[in-house]
């Protein structure tokens, strides 16, 4: 039987996705339930532990039941948190119902709001099964290096190793052309090559990826 949960999206300050995740995690697991011994008022984190104590409590009376003093409202209701990181400024929360999200994010700094409506399974699958980083990049495309010593430099793609997610690129503004290998995670596509620029035989099949997402839909 598939889990009967829903997934919701929360907007965060860009760069604070992980800290929001940590704070929600703490809200869910950091505050255990509190049970109290009816005889001596000593507190425990589970009914079983309270019962165990009650059996030997020095103030033991003939009858008494463990008293639930505080019940964590999120434990067992918030199932998972997902930070894709390929999508900056968003965190996904899987919960039993929408109300759990509101409780989970209340008072959490850097939460900038929530996206109305549920996230579809198809949408979330896009992040759960990430595409190879080099997908959608082909020979002669112009890319920008986003990390490392050449950060900010533009380069032309001369080879795509899709399986290894590696590219061979040549810096555009360099007086000498030095091919360099780079992981596709460290570049971003700036400009697709026009038809003529793609050397014969190297044009790749490309189902033009539609970047439409659930929050851009009406």
């Amino acid at each position: 039987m598939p889990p009967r949960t829903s997934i919701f999206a929360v907007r965060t300050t860009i760069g604070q996705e992980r800290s929001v995740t940590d704070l929600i995690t703490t809200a869910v697991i950091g505050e255990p339930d509190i049970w109290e011994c009816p005889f001596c008022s000593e507190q425990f984190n589970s009914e079983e532990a309270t019962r165990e104590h009650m059996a030997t409590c020095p103030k033991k009376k003939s009858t008494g039941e463990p008293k639930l003093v505080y019940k964590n409202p999120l434990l067992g209701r918030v199932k998972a948190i997902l930070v894709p990181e390929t999508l900056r400024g968003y965190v996904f929360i899987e919960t039993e119902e929408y109300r759990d999200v509101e409780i989970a994010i209340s008072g959490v700094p850097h939460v900038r709001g929530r996206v109305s409506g549920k996230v579809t399974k198809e949408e979330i699958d896009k992040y759960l099964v990430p595409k190879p980083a080099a997908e959608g990049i082909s020979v002669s495309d112009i890319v920008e290096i986003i990390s490392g010593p050449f950060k900010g430099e533009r380069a032309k793609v001369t080879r795509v190793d899709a399986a290894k997610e590696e590219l061979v690129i040549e810096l555009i503004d360099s007086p000498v052309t030095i091919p360099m290998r780079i992981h596709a995670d460290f570049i971003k596509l700036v400009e697709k090559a026009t038809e003529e620029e793609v050397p014969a035989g190297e044009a790749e099949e490309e189902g033009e990826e539609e970047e439409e997402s659930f929050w851009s839909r009406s």
Partner: protein
Amino acid sequence: MPRLRACRQCHYLTTENICPNCGSTNLSSSFTGIVVILPGRDPHEDPRKTSYIAERLNIDKPGKYALKVR
């Protein structure tokens, strides 16, 4: 703060030198995306039975994992 690394076997995130989840020492500091699988009221319940994300990623123990590890 000790650096967070991801286990290449099970994707569990840890600051230790051995993965506390599966015992592997094959850890990577290069990962993207984070998934937190939260425990249920019964800490021994299989999250794959109650969470779509856990089921989809085949994660059988609550914890903090990397989505993608290099």
